[in-house]
């Protein structure tokens, strides 16, 4: 169990090489894959979450932790049985047509991923039909629509409108610098978050 504790610690430290070594060592010692994943890797991320919320860890550190966890998971992936790793939900995310900005959207995507969501990132300047196609293809639980420019807010309004008219079951959430709670409500979105951490909380709330 000491080894698992050490593994957890190294995930929290974001030391991916160490994590890979420790996972291999655990496998060599015959430790059960489920234990490695649940008590080592996933439990580490459960510790990381509150540390981020309290401000003790900064987001880039959390991303390092998530990266380390992912590297560890890669090794045991072939041995995993169904149910060993549970996704918190599936999210399709993209920036609306005419907007080439993506740092905010990327940050949200990375944070959702490191919180256990499966994320399909469509990228920048996506027309409405691409959002529709992605929803049909991936059947997500949540669709995230992003805009940074004030001038692309109409495109966000249109995208949300089309998704809603299609009657998709996924919840549609929006975000970006010019967006606020009032605008989100006005265009018929199911949720709004003002930063990456809030977006994770919102996604979890919608999945509950």
């Amino acid at each position, binding site marked *: 169990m000491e080894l698992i504790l050490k593994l957890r610690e190294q995930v929290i430290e*974001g030391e991916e090489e160490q994590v890979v070594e420790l996972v291999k060592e655990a496998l060599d010692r015959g430790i059960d894959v489920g234990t490695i994943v649940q008590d080592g890797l996933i439990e580490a991320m459960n510790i990381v979450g509150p540390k981020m919320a309290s401000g003790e860890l*900064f*987001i*880039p*550190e959390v*991303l*390092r932790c*998530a*990266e380390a966890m992912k590297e560890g998971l890669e090794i045991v992936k072939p041995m995993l049985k169904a149910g060993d790793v549970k996704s918190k939900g599936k999210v399709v995310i993209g920036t609306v047509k005419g907007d080439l900005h993506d*740092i905010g959207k*990327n*940050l949200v995507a*990375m944070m959702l991923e490191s919180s256990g969501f499966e994320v399909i990132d469509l990228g920048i300047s996506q027309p409405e039909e691409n959002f529709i196609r992605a929803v049909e293809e991936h059947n997500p639980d949540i669709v995230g629509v992003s805009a940074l420019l004030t001038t692309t807010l109409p495109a966000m309004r249109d995208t949300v409108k089309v998704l809603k008219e299609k009657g998709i079951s996924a919840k549609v959430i929006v975000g970006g*610098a010019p967006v*606020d*709670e009032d605008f989100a409500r006005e265009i018929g979105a199911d949720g709004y978050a*003002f*930063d990456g951490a809030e977006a994770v909380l919102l996604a979890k709330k919608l999945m509950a």
Partner: protein
Amino acid sequence: MLKGGIESNALKFLTDEDIKKIHQASMTVLAEAGVEIHERAALDLCAEKGARVDYDRNRACFNEDLVMQAVETAPSTVTIYGRGDDSRNITLGGTKVYMGTGGTALNVIDFDRKRRKTTVEDIAKTARLINGLDNIHFFVIPCYPNELDTEVVDVNRFYHSINNTTKPIMGGLFTEDGVDRVINMAAEIAGGLDKLVERPFISFISSILSPLKFDDVRTRMLMKISKAGLPVATSCAPLAGATSPVTLAGTLVQLNAEALSGVVLSQLVHPGAPILYSAVPTIMDMQTMSFLFGSVESGIMNAAAAQMAQFYKLPLYSTGGISDSKQPDQQAGYEKVLTALMPALAGANFIHEAAGQLDSGMTISYAQYVIDNDINGQVMRAVRGIEVDEYTLAAEVITKVGPGGNFLAEKQTAKKMRTEFYYPKVSNRTNYAGWEQAGCKDTWTLAEEVARQILENHTPDSIPEEIDKKIREMEPGIK
């Protein structure tokens, strides 16, 4: 946290040629006008050591040789110690920057936002507060205990400072025998006068008056302190337009003459005694005849004074981070940044008044200490400047991330983000919704919250009980 003592010479208002011209002009002033000294023993000493003394006019004139000899014997670095904590020592000299509090205010804006007279409790509380604020590197006793009888003011001011912070302490004195009593008290804590002199955790201010005047009491204090071998600043505060020329250059000439005359007197008393080249250059508002502490001109002159002290290789007592505003508001913010940043970037050693002071030094505010801690942190970040090496140039990381990528999850980001940027305690830095969610608080309110929290939870190492008992027997007037 950015520790004090980082070096900077990024800002230079004076060319080498300008510095020499100011030096020469000051030499002319000291040789021809000289300084007025109202203490006979000091005049006698000056005469004995080769100064031209006119007893009828209480004047002592110093030629360049005599001045430069004093500059030579004065130490180039002076260390003021943390009490029982060497990590808090400040080593003044060269271009090392430290920032701290200043005095002496008579009023305080308390947590109820009302202005009232300061008491001895405010000395204890400000000392405790700054002990918990990383970017305030030393404690100049900031206020006056209005409720006390004059004869116990000095011992109380120093006692409550020492008892509530382990950071280096400096203070002005209000009674002549206060010097001896404060030194005795500190010696008791240090385990003997020799130990105190060897590692002084207290130091003094004994002012010279502008223009060019030593009064009798402060001269005797200065001589006593220098004789004992404890660090002292002579706090020369020319008021451009009123007590010095209206030109910044002229004020610098006079300030330089005054600062050097303090060095001369201390070195005549005790060659090698720790003395600071002391600069408090200010201006008068010629429209209103108000004394101004937080002017941009003050900032410029303090930066120039740093260059002068560096020219003489003398440790500097300088001034910055101060405001004429009456409360922690916008004016306080910009005046403090302006007057702190300029001397700091010029490598000023001991930037006092750089925490808690408002109202041209007449009022302190608990919230303002917390705000100024953040200003100082950001100023010290600027002092640190840009570190350029292979790792920080990051060509490898830029190449790895490539066009269109991002640096959020890079190892370098996680490794350097806490030290490469400064993180203020009381700035609003989230987006609008985040600010609303946190209660729409302004800086003043946030600073009050931090100040309260420190005062409630922070307990510095106080004076050991045994010694404390002894001191209180020696000085029953201690509150």
